[in-house]
Structures are given as C-alpha cells and as structure tokens.
C-alpha cells in the first residue's frame, strides 16, 4: 500500500488538484454522456410513439 492515510491519498503529494481534476472531469464527462444518452433514449421513444399515433389516425 502506497498511502499512509486518507488525507495523504487525497493530497497526492501536493498534486491533488491536477490528479483529481483529471479523474473527476473524466468521470463527469462519462456521467454526462450516460445521462444524455438515457434522456435522448426516452425522448426518442416518446417522439416516435407520438408520431406513430398521429400517423395511425
């Protein structure tokens, strides 16, 4: 194990901002993509259903 304590882990020998900035933003990007994908999926489904109802009339 490299780390003596949690605070040392978060500090990353003074490079915490850079390391966690990188990993954090990457996680954020992935999260945003997944959320957008979910939202787009339900939106598309709703839109297609609506169009289908309209066309069947």
């Amino acid at each position, binding site marked *: 194990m490299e780390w003596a304590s949690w605070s040392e882990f978060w500090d990353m020998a003074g490079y915490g901002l850079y390391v966690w900035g990188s*990993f954090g933003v990457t996680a954020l990007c992935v999260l945003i993509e997944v959320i957008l994908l979910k939202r787009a999926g339900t939106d598309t489904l709703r839109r297609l259903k609506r169009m289908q109802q309209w066309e069947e009339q």
Partner: protein
Amino acid sequence: MKLYTFASPATFYHLAGKLIPWFAWSAGLLTLWGLYISFFLAPTDFQQSEAYRIIFIHVPAAWMSMFIYLVMAFWGAIGLAFNTRLSFMMARALAPTGAMFTFVALWTGALWGKPMWGAWWVWDARLTSELILLFLYVGIIALWAAIDDVKRGDRAGSLLTLIGAINVPIIYFSVIWWNTLHQGASISVTKAPSMAAIMLQGMLVMAVAAWFYTIAVALVRVRRIILERERHTEWAKAILEGDQ
C-alpha cells in the same frame, strides 16, 4: 446462420440489446480494477511524484480518440462500398464518444502539463494533434447535424471521415516535424521516464475498460438510431406499441 443476418437492423437491434449489459458491466468492473492499479498498486514515480497517475486516463483516452476515429472510417468505408445501412449507423453512434475521449485527452494533458512544465498548454506534438482531431470530430458531427436527409448525411459524413483518416497520419507527422523544429529538444507528454510493467498494465486495463464502455454506449445509440429509421417497419411498430 450467415454473417449478414446480423447486418439486418431488426436482428441487430435485439442482439445489441442483449450485449449492452455485458459490455457495460465489464467496463465498470475493469474501470474499478484499473483505478485500483492506478492508485494502489502503481508506485510513486521518483521524478514526477504522484502527478504521473494522470497517464492512467490520459493515455487510454488518447488511444481511444484515435482508435474510434479509425473505426468510424472503417464503418464509413464499408457503408460506402457495400451500401450497408447499419455501418453508417455505427459510424454515427461512435462519433460523440470519440469526441468526448478527445476532449478528455486534451483536458488531462493540460492538467498534467501544468505541474510538469508549468504551463497549462504546450504546443506538444501529441496535444496539438489531439486538438486537430477534436476539430475533425466537431466538423463531422456538425456536417451530420446540417444535413437533414439521412442518406445524404450518412454518405457525406463517411466521405469526410475517410479523407480525415487519410489526413490524420499526415497531420500527426507534420505536427511532430513542426514541433521538433520549433522547440529543439521536444517535450513529450507521454514520455514516461521509466515505464514500469505495472504502469503499462494499468493503462491497458483502463484502455480495455474505455473500449468496452465505448461499445456499450455506441450500441445504445445505434439502437436508438435503428428504431428511429425503421419506425415504419412492422417489428419496430411492435416494439413501440409493446413498450408503453
């Protein structure tokens, strides 16, 4: 069963639905393993201290950004040559994730550059190529967005991807050339002082995780595109009606 039955959108829609959870879970587990290697197994670097841990996402993200572009070009070429609708859909489904990884590679590159040589941005060959790759992704996505006609959009986007793919190695080479001329001894972001085996292992695990994630996300997206384009067919109508 012949291979091309998978190329039928209806079959592929269901197949993709079954595959997505597998890829998504594998991506999640591999990410956890990769993170464990990155933070707990890989030792502190004697030169770069802890800051070097950024490579565990920077390098896989850079690999993925280029790899996804090549895969897009591959699907585009297949679509243009054999007129297979599904390949165009795959190309479209991959682009946003490719652009996302390109952005991540740039962002992490900047965050690594700051502590290493005191500047957020250096015109390093790799960072510059990544920037141009991001421009290419943005251009392709913008072209797709501008063309309303699906068939025209598919083909136009694929042609642009192809000429970009021919150009990317030339751009990369020219930027390296330019960089060595202007900065003498080149500083390279990915030049790790001594690449321990465990570091390489960490990067590979993260790269495979990113790859599986890309497949999962692209499959979700391609399912949506298939449903949108096939909504007049019987099987798509059945799905839309059944899934209330």
